[in-house]
């Protein structure tokens, strides 16, 4: 492709960095610094208004609007922007929604709205009265402690942005055929939020951890008392007793009134509705760390306590719910994350991985948080395969789906955890977007 005459327009002037229309990400930076001077001039054209002067205005300008709400809601024009639900029917025709997927194809940013944060509730959502709930810290400690919400709220708190990803996120990508469904179904068991709470290290310091302590066994106050064992190094490093999400009290589906939060670890270690923390010298080997959330390998052995979520990314736009209406400029954007710390790099390919260009990472790039990436792209109207590939600060690179399956084997029917392979969107000549394997 030959260098064009400079027009002054960052997109028109942008140079290709990889095949099939990918442009230099610096075009986005130039765009961001341009003023809106050109736009102001356009509004001055004279219009012959009839009487009354607002006759050509939409109705929402011609009468006072609605009163404010106690709790604001999204526009009713956006009612489809809700979580995708999966229901189970245990018996007797009763249906229990147990999985809610974040619709990343309809969102754009780095934080997930609280009401759209994914949820998996193995035993439903308990309706907990905070006055009758307390966290008990016990076991190998000098002083067993009991802390209710009112007391916990007086402790020093910290605020951090963290992703939560279910170990089973992208489970359908182990299947032999690509799922003909939304991005929510393939990557919606991931969300990013601001979490505020008390560092667990502060509470453990007050309790006085005894020598030889190695694990913390957490139990929730749901009807299954969901329980996980977490290494004490983690608890002393960055674990929280989280009390707030995105500035408001954690919602019931996220663990109200308190949640054991372990940044970067697989989702269900973040025990919701936590009421018991037992400091021990060994794990309890609960159901959810033995029969579930273990990684069965092709040799029949299972890896256990594979807690850190791995480097991963996915393109969220364009994606299944969009159609490219005409050739021309589009922004490719997506999310990248790693439980190991920060995302260092995201590359994008539009030609089935033959060539790659660096995407622009939205600053600040925070550890153990979703990072938004963007890539300018000029679609020529032809077929394209769009992929993203993340690298984290430890140097781990997101593998291809083929390489992952070669190492881990075909999908076992149960327990299809920790898929972090590269995801592919196929752009059809008509502009439709399909999930494909490439």
């Amino acid at each position, binding site marked *: 492709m030959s260098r064009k005459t400079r027009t002054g327009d960052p997109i028109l002037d942008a140079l290709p960095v990889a095949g099939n229309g990918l442009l230099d990400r610096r075009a986005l930076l130039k765009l961001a610094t341009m003023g809106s001077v050109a736009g102001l001039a356009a509004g001055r054209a004279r219009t012959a208004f009839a009487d009354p002067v607002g006759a050509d205005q939409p109705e929402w300008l011609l009468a006072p609007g609605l009163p404010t709400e106690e709790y604001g809601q999204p526009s009713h024009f956006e009612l489809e922007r809700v979580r995708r639900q999966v229901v189970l029917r245990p018996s007797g025709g009763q249906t229990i929604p147990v999985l809610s997927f974040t619709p990343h194809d309809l969102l754009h940013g780095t934080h997930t709205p609280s009401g759209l944060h994914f949820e998996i509730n193995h*035993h439903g959502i308990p309706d907990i009265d905070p006055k009758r709930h307390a966290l008990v810290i016990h076991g190998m400690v000098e002083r067993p402690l009991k*802390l209710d919400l009112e*007391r916990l709220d007086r402790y020093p708190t910290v605020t951090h942005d963290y992703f939560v990803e279910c170990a089973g996120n992208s489970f359908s990508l182990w299947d032999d055929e690509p799922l003909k469904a939304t991005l929510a179904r393939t990557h919606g068991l991931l969300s990013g939020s601001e979490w505020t709470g008390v560092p667990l290290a502060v509470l453990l310091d007050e309790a006085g951890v005894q020598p030889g302590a190695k694990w913390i066994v957490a139990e929730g106050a749901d009807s299954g008392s969901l*329980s996980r064992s977490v290494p004490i190094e983690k608890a002393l490093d960055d674990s929280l007793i989280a009390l707030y999400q995105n500035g408001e009290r954690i919602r019931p589906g996220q663990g109200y009134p308190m949640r054991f939060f372990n940044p970067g670890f697989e989702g269900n270690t973040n025990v919701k509705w936590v009421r018991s923390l*037992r400091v021990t010298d060994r794990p309890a080997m609960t159901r959810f760390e033995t029969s579930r959330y273990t990684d069965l390998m092709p040799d029949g052995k299972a890896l256990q306590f594979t807690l850190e979520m791995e480097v991963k990314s996915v393109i969220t736009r364009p994606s299944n719910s969009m159609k490219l209406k005409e050739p021309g400029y589009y922004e490719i954007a997506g999310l990248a994350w790693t439980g190991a710390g920060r995302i260092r790099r995201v590359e994008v390919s539009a030609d089935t991985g033959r060539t790659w260009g660096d995407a622009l990472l939205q600053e600040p790039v925070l550890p153990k948080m979703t990072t938004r990436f963007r890539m300018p792209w000029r679609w020529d109207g032809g077929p394209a395969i769009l992929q993203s590939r993340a690298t984290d600060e430890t*140097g781990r690179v997101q593998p291809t789906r083929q390489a992952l399956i070669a190492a881990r084997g*075909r999908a076992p029917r149960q327990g299809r955890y920790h898929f972090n392979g590269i995801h592919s969107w196929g752009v059809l000549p008509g502009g439709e977007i399909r999930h494909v394997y490439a």
Partner: protein
Amino acid sequence: MSTRRLVVALACLGVASVATGERPERAPGLGLPASNEDVARVFWSIFPDGENLPPGSGTAAEGGILFQLHCQACHGPEGAGSPADRLVGGQGTLGTEEPVKTIGSYWPYATTVFNYIRRAMPYTAPMSLSNDEYYALTAYLLKINEIIPSNQIIDAETLPKVVMPNEEGFVISYPARPARYDYRKDQ
């Protein structure tokens, strides 16, 4: 402020304790002392060596009747599964293309079975049976997986001694980073 720095800052408020090795009250010191009763109410976990197992006992024969009453509607006759998890069989399938994970083929510890069903089952009425009944149901689940004979009494003494077929099937991966995939070749 990082968690560590916060802890350091708080520790400085109780400087004397660091210097002398005593354990005076730490700041903020708002936790109430938890009594044994407080702990017993919230601590349900049972460990593979039997720690925290309650008194009581049961046999598979007793458990079979309870299973029909409380479990079969979801787990099928004799734990054959559907709509909820299959509970029996699958031994020898873990290294194949179609692994079948059940209590008998996959679960490494018998205490986990008791621990889980005692806190979480029956699904619509958890914690509604007695310790004797949960021991009996555990015995039944072990018996239909041909792990114990039908007349064996299961209690706090015998349950931790039960050796599950897949006890050696797990590799604890912590504190190493997950080794499901060899990233070195891509770097």
